[in-house]
């Protein structure tokens, strides 16, 4: 190779950045010296060009291509030394540009084509598909597709441009199916937690990110993420978590009065009952069904042996023939009503067969003082006559007039009108009623001077209704005297010892406030899951599984023998109470929940949402009407 081949007269200047080069080089022949021209052409096939010098034409070429040509121009003026044509040939750079352009154009065409042919973005080829949804969301979006959440989807370019310049809250769509006890855009869906605080607006997508496939792997929050909003920041449960509050976790009074101290330390120790008592906590509590709470078994399973017979002994006195000073009953009407033989009208001094006072129930119903015969005798005798004439109806009317909703049907369920009429007839004639037989099996019956109700057993509907009635009327009286009588009646009905069925011996009564702001008393008939800390969770079953059945309960629940448990139930305020157990302290949990042992993430014990659930429509089954073949 020549050393000076790069000189201007040795070789042409290479311009690889030009779009074309003129080339025989592509055929591995001597490359073209000229071109390309502005129009891209390379200019002829001649190697030598005619040149006029000193009155003579000759052919010549550039020095680097051989210098002067031996042969001159032909008759037509062209030099005869010809080479293959110098065709313009794309440079590598130009080819690269073309390939790039084609690739970009292909991609754009594919995107545009996909959008045009498949605007809904359904099927396999979707150029806006950000990834598969979780299984549940995929199911619920199969009808509307992406539009279920993204309003701009398949709405055309104008909607797309609008969407770019406007903010869209994707979380709005979530509320179509998911609901909570509070607003979805409030932290923890709980406005009580954010009182007097400035908190950010919450969007579901902050935590729940979709398009990650079948598994939605962002249901977990880290401690750091919780710390974002919480002012009280700490590293972990064992490091920085506040101590549990006093009374934890026994904040609310039990729905059932069960004094663990007296039962465990006194009754079950008593040789009389020890064989009936449970051998361990599991004897009463259903470990197999445990979760947040370990529910006790039913009354019939665990209480009935000792307490079953007590229920039937506690009767309700609806009516009692009281002592009367004078007889105001119209004898003719009574004889007619009772179809009794006519009596001689002698002017004897009236001497009441009864020396009792009226029952508190009847005294309340008639709103008469039970200790003043002069006041109560007239209305009481009118009631007796009315009962003799119409049996149960006047009592029904009296009961129904006490409450907004008529309750007599429930309160007098199973009452035999004949019995009531006969008792009224006897009492009207100033006689004791003599029942044909003893009331053995429970229910309504009349006996001598009283109409009584004997509960059949646990969950007796009439007894329950009377307790509820007594509580309802005790808080609904405007008249002071009547209110006093209502309270007296209530106290008798809910009395541990004398109250009907002794229901309230075990079932707690709570005072609640209605929406109208009225105070009401409510019996806790059922064992209640205490869920007044909806953002906390605890699974007894998993803890019992790890610690075993024998000592797992007493490891955390330590009996407090000093606590006056039963005194807590004397008032109707469910918040003021002393538990049978010592408060559980943080250190108890830290026996296991420490860095080196068991998970101590926030979500182990805390739940973000407030009562998360699905909307009812999610469970609605669409009626499939078969098409009728015509």
């Amino acid at each position, binding site marked *: 190779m020549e050393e000076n081949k790069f000189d201007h007269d040795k070789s042409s200047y290479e311009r*690889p950045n030009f779009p074309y080069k003129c080339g025989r080089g592509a055929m591995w022949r001597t490359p073209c010296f000229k071109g390309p021209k502005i129009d891209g052409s390379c200019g002829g096939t001649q190697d030598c060009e005619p040149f006029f010098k000193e009155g003579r034409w000759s052919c010549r070429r550039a020095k680097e291509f051989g210098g002067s040509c031996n042969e001159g121009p032909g008759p037509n003026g062209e030099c005869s030394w010809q080479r293959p044509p110098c065709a313009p040939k794309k440079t590598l750079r130009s080819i690269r540009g073309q390939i790039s352009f084609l690739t970009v154009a292909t991609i754009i065409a594919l995107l545009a084509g996909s959008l045009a042919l498949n605007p809904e973005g359904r099927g396999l080829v979707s150029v806006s598909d950000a990834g598969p949804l979780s299984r549940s969301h995929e199911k619920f979006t199969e009808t509307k597709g992406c539009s279920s959440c993204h309003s*701009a989807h398949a709405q055309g370019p104008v909607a797309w441009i609008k969407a770019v310049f406007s903010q*869209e809250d994707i979380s709005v769509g979530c509320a179509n199916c998911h609901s909570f006890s509070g607003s979805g855009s409030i932290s923890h869906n709980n406005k009580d937690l954010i009182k007097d605080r400035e908190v950010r607006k919450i969007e579901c997508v902050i935590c729940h990110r979709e398009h990650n496939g079948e598994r939605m792997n962002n249901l977990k929050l880290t401690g*750091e993420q919780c710390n974002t909003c919480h002012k009280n920041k700490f590293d972990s449960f064992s490091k920085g978590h506040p101590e549990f509050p006093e009374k934890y976790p026994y904040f609310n009074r039990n729905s059932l009065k069960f004094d663990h101290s007296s039962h465990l330390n006194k009754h079950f120790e008593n040789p009389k009952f020890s064989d009936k008592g449970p051998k361990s906590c599991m004897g009463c509590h259903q470990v197999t069904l445990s979760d947040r709470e370990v529910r006790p078994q039913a009354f019939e399973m665990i209480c009935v042996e000792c307490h079953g017979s007590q229920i039937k002994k506690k009767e309700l006195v609806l009516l009692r023939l009281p002592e009367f000073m004078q007889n105001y009953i119209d004898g003719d009407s009574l004889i007619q009503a009772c179809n009794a033989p006519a009596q001689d009208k002698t002017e004897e001094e009236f001497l009441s067969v009864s020396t009792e006072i009226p029952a508190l129930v009847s005294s309340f119903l008639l709103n008469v003082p039970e200790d003043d015969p002069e006041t109560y005798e007239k209305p009481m005798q009118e009631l007796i006559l009315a009962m003799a004439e119409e049996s149960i109806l006047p009592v029904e009317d009296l009961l129904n007039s006490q409450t907004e909703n008529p309750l007599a049907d429930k309160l007098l369920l199973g009452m035999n009108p004949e019995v009531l009429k006969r008792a009224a007839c006897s009492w009207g004639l100033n006689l004791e009623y003599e029942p044909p037989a003893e009331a053995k099996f429970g229910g309504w019956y009349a006996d001598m001077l009283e109409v009584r109700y004997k509960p059949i057993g646990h969950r007796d509907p009439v007894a329950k209704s009377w307790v509820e009635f007594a509580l309802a009327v005790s808080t609904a009286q405007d008249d002071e005297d009547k209110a006093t009588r209502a309270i007296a009646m209530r106290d008798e009905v809910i009395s541990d010892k004398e109250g009907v069925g002794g229901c309230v011996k075990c079932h707690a009564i709570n005072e609640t406030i209605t929406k109208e702001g009225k105070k009401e008393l409510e019996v806790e008939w059922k064992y209640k899951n205490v869920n007044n800390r909806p953002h906390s969770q605890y699974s007894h079953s998993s803890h019992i599984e790890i610690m075993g059945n024998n000592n797992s309960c007493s490891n955390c629940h330590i009996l407090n023998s000093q606590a006056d448990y039963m005194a807590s139930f004397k008032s109707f305020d469910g918040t003021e109470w002393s538990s049978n157990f010592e408060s559980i302290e943080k250190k108890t949990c830290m026996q296991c929940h420490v860095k080196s042992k068991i998970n101590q993430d926030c979500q182990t014990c805390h739940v973000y949402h407030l009562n998360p659930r699905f909307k009812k429509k999610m469970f609605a089954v669409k009626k499939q009407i078969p098409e009728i073949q015509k």
Partner: protein
Amino acid sequence: MRRIFGYISLAFIFFILISVWTLKIDNSLGYSEFVSGGALFFIISFLFLFNIRKRLPFLPLWPAHKWFLLHTIMGFLALLLFWLHAGSLWPKGLYVQILASLFYLTTLSGIVGLIMEKIYPNLLTRIGLECIYERIPHDIAKIRKKSEKLILECTEKTGSDTLAKHYLETLGWFFQRPRFFINNIFGGRDSHNWIIQQCAILERFLNEAEREYMKQIFTLAEIKIKIDHHYSLQTMLKNWLLIHIPLAAAAMVMAVWHLIVIQVYFN
């Protein structure tokens, strides 16, 4: 070397900063994808600028070798940022998968190109000859012309056509155009062996004068071998960009599409 290490350190620090930032955003329940995605788009745009810079050689915008160095480092940084942004090696969703495929292919072609850029210049230097790629056809034509001239001269002066026949049957093929392309890419010596073999076969049939011409032909063939090596290696050095740049352009288009989709669907 110190400078390269400095650039790598800077890139690594940049990545660490972005990672920490995204982690912080994640922990504060924010959208870290916007930060990692923004950083990635910035880096990809910078990578793209290299191609534009090459089209503007007259501007004093840093020497190309520095751009190349930064392009390489930023390329690896972009790969790390891509993984950080996607949260996985292989994202879900068709269009993002197309984008990922293009990105990975671009990266892969870039890595192959980088390897060639690091190995081939040494190999080219070792050849012991300098060639301008665009002039290789010219050089080959010249060598061919010289060899043909020698063959003609040999036939004329020695009166023997042994060498000429042999040239037409074998060596002519070799001088026609670059040969042994694949072997040359991997630094092989097939062309050299082939020439030696062809000359050795013929040598015993030649007289003294013809052998002199044969030696000259052999010398030209050796130069041709070197040019062929140049051709093969330079072709690879130039042509890998035929894959890398279109792929990068396509990836950029998909990245812009991704931006549009995000703005429309997740604003």
